[in-house]
Structure formats: structure tokens, C-alpha cells
């Protein structure tokens, strides 16, 4: 059972990570900075609960705001470039963040034990959940509470004007400009929101894993962040959820017997999706097929 709770937590955290990239991808921007924001969230929240003995909730909120602040600050220079150059710029950012934590040493003695980020040795001792007697199911619920919150907020704003504005910028910047959308403001807002979301994900990650080091936050993590929305499609937040379940649940855990061969499968799935279903697995076609299927069942039910 423990194992499944752990898996559910990982899936939840990766959904949050994927959605942080999803928001930005709605505006047509591909960012690999999500790993950096995730790292900032992880370390900030860990430092707050361990060194300053904060409760997890305020620590999580502050971590999210810190990551959001960095996203806002790098949003202006980063979004002056686009496409491949933005990818390069955001990779550079993530690496700067990673190397900062690689060097960061901030040790304090808390309750007789020395704790805090210890540069290359990583940041151990992030034991808020265990220290406060949280059961695995409680931790899992806590993680999914935030997953639900983030998914709901994005889903809800997508139905309102703000979602349409993001998508308008993503579809055609010049057209968006000519209907009077402030492109820079929209992009920076999306970057900031993405940073805040990734910060929440990082904060949750640090506390479920109880241990982080710089190697957690490499380019691979940033690649996963954008792979989920690419695989799931940008039609709906449920696409990202589906993609994470598929990759983390089925591919990484379900096929564990295959060992490192799974990585090849991961690449193959991405390539196949881009060629066969460029709109993602959860695109308009899929949704229509699902709707039809449901409608058919509804009609069939009274007779059965």
C-alpha cells in the first residue's frame, strides 16, 4: 500500500509540474525553466520548515511566491526571445539555479541536530510529515488537494476571458496584438503563474522525498515538464493528467522490469504522438469520441 501512496504522490507532483509548463505553452512559449522554479520551490519550502520550523502550509505558499517572483523577474528578459532561443535561455536559467543550490551551504543546529542545505551532499532532514505524524494517506491527500486546486484554477480560468487571452497569444501574436492584447503582460503573467505552480510542485516534492539535491533538478526534469502537456495536448488540463499517469504510472513504474529500456520507450512514445496525434493524446478528436461513447451508453441504458 505504501508503494501506491508513494506513486500517487509522484504522479500528483508531476501533474503540477506539467501544468506549470502547460500554462506557458498556452501562450505558445516552450520553457525549460520549470525545473529551476521547481528547485526554488523545493529548497525554499525545505529551508522554511527545517531551519525556521514553519508549518508546511505557509512554507508552501511562500515557496510558491518566491518561485513566482523569480519567474516574473526572468519573464521580461526571457520573453524577448522566442522559439529555440527561449528554450536555450530557460535551460541556462535552470542550470544557474541548479548550480546555485549545488554550492549553497546553510547549516544550523535544530533540536541538537545539524540540518539545512549542505551543497554537494544535498539537503536531507526535510521531515515535516514524519515529524508531525502524518500518515502516508494523509500526505497523499494533501498533495492531491493541491493538484485539484491547480487543475481547477487553470480549468476555470480557461473558461473565462483570461484563458482565451492566453490562447489568443499562443495562436497568433500579431492578431492578438491587433485586438488590443498586451502581449508582454500576458506572457509575463503566464510565466509568473507557471513559476508559482512549479514552486508548489517543488515544495511538495521536497517534503514527500524528505531529501533533495541539485541532481534532482537537471534538464531531464524540465524535459518531463514540457513532455506531459505535449503528450496530453493543450486542449484540457486532463490531457496533462493523463500523460503523467501514462508516463509515471505505466511507463516508469508499470514497466520497471524493462529497466533502462524504458527510456527508449519514452522517446518512442513522444515521437509517435507528435506524428500520429500532433494535438496530443487528449485532443479534440479524442474528446469527441469519448462524448459519443458516453452518449451511446446513456441512450443504451434504459433498454438494458
Amino acid at each position, binding site marked *: 500500500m505504501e508503494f501506491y501512496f508513494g506513486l500517487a504522490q509522484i504522479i500528483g507532483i508531476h501533474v503540477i509540474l506539467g501544468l506549470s509548463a502547460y500554462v506557458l505553452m498556452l501562450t505558445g512559449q516552450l520553457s525549460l525553466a520549470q525545473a529551476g522554479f521547481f528547485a526554488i520551490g523545493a529548497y525554499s519550502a525545505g529551508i522554511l520548515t527545517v531551519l525556521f520550523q514553519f508549518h508546511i502550509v505557509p512554507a508552501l505558499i511562500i515557496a510558491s511566491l518566491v518561485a513566482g517572483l523569480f519567474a516574473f523577474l526572468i519573464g521580461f528578459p526571457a520573453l524577448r526571445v522566442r522559439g529555440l532561443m527561449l528554450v536555450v535561455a530557460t535551460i541556462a536559467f535552470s542550470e544557474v539555479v541548479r548550480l546555485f543550490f549545488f554550492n549553497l551551504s546553510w547549516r544550523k543546529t535544530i533540536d541538537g541536530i545539524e540540518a539545512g542545505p549542505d551543497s554537494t551532499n544535498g539537503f536531507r532532514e526535510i521531515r515535516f510529515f514524519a515529524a508531525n505524524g502524518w500518515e502516508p494517506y494523509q500526505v497523499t491527500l494533501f498533495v492531491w488537494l493541491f493538484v485539484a486546486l491547480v487543475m481547477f484554477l487553470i480549468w476555470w480560468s480557461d473558461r473565462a476571458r483570461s484563458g482565451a487571452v492566453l490562447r489568443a497569444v499562443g*495562436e*497568433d501574436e*500579431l492578431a*492578438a496584438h*491587433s485586438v*488590443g*492584447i*498586451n502581449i508582454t503582460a500576458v506572457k509575463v503573467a503566464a510565466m509568473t503563474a507557471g513559476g508559482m505552480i512549479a514552486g508548489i510542485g517543488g515544495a511538495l516534492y521536497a517534503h514527500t522525498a524528505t531529501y533533495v539535491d541539485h541532481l534532482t533538478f537537471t534538464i531531464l526534469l524540465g524535459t518531463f515538464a514540457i513532455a506531459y502537456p505535449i503528450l496530453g495536448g493543450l486542449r484540457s488540463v486532463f490531457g496533462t493528467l493523463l500523460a503523467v499517469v501514462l508516463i509515471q504510472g505505466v511507463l516508469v513504474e508499470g514497466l520497471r522490469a524493462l529497466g533502462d529500456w524504458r527510456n527508449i520507450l519514452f522517446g518512442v512514445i513522444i515521437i509517435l504522438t507528435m506524428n500520429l496525434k500532433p494535438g496530443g493524446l487528449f485532443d479534440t478528436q479524442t474528446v469527441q469520441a469519448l462524448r459519443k461513447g458516453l452518449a451511446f451508453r446513456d441512450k443504451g441504458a434504459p433498454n438494458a
Partner: protein
Amino acid sequence: MLRVENLVTAYGKIKALRGVTLEAREGEVTCLLGPNGAGKTTTMFSIAGILRPTSGDITLDGESLRGLGAARVVGKGVALVPENRLVFPQMTVSDNLHAGAFSRRDDRKRQRDMEKIYQRFPVLRERSRQPAGTLSGGEQQMLAIARALMARPRILLMDEPSIGLAPIIVAEIFRIIAEINREGVSILLVEQNARMALKFAHRLYLIQQGEITFSGTPDELGQDEVIQRSYLGG
């Protein structure tokens, strides 16, 4: 109503506009005519707030629009229909129209305006749930115009509405432009299609290499021999 005075706009060091002065009068169709690369689109982008001019001024009824940025320029009543009918291809026709009203907050009036638009463009009503990318070229141009109208503009900036369209569709688009104009919306039109421009415009400007080289009525332009030869093939 809309005055552009001594406008200079540069891309880096290259000046695309070298002191453009023109005026679009209330209730009229004003046409800016000129060859490729003369600065027509740059003029439109500068007025719409998409590009920032280096010097000069743009005023709407005496109030400066320069440096306001696209969002606020639309709010002042200046809407642009960009070249090549840039619609949002994956959004539905109806969402495209809503996008045109992003700068407005009066939701109830917006519904009424949608209804008016659908009356003017029945084909858009038929296709309202369809992604805009699936429309024909002419329909997309109508959608781009309709989207700009959703901002309730006092003056409509139209960048080459005839480009890439079949002659019969071009005639239809110009009929619509004339109709919109008769209902009180002033129009500043950029064209390469001189014949159409001469037929519909009240006032013409000729732009060459970033400078206005002629201004006058269509009759006056028609009499100018050089222009006759280079633009009308006569």
C-alpha cells in the same frame, strides 16, 4: 479625426517611415496606396500601437495615441484588421469574435453586437462553432473585419483587405467596407489594388520609400500622368 504628423518609425537603424503626414477625416474612406516595402504596414502598426515610432505624433481628435500601446489604442476606438486576415485558426468563429471585444467590459452590449455582426455576415453565424482555420479566405477576411468591429471602433484600419482573394470576393469585401463606412465608421485603408482604392476612397495618399509623395482626391490622382502609368497601367 485621425492625424499622423511627421511620423518616423525605424527598425533598428533603418528608417521605414521618414516623416509621414496624413489625415483620415471623420466619416470618410482614406486610402494609403503604395508599392511593396513603401511603409504602408509600418504606418498602420505605428498607429495601432504595435510599433513604437521614433518621432512625430498620432492624434485622434487632438488626443495623442503615440506610445499608448496596442491595448489602449483599441480602447480609444481605433481597431486594426491586419494583413493576411490573421484570425485565431484553432478558435471557433464565435470565440474569434469575442476576442475582438477583449478591450471592452460591457458584456451585455457585446451580445447585441454579436447579433448585429451575424446579421451583417450570415455566413459567420452558420460557421460560428467551426474553427476559424477551416473557413475560406474570403470568410476569414470577413471574420477579421467582424472581429475588429467587435471593438466598436470609430475608425477602422484595414491593411490590404484584398490581398490573395479572388476578384469576386474582393468586390464583396469592398461592398462591406463601403457599407460599414456609410454606417459612420471612418476607414483608413492600405491597398495595392489601385483600381478598387480609386473607386471607394474619398481621399488618397501615395507613399513611396517611407514618404508621402501625393495626396488628393481620386479624381486628382487619376489626372496625374506618372501615377496613371505606374499604378493603373494606363
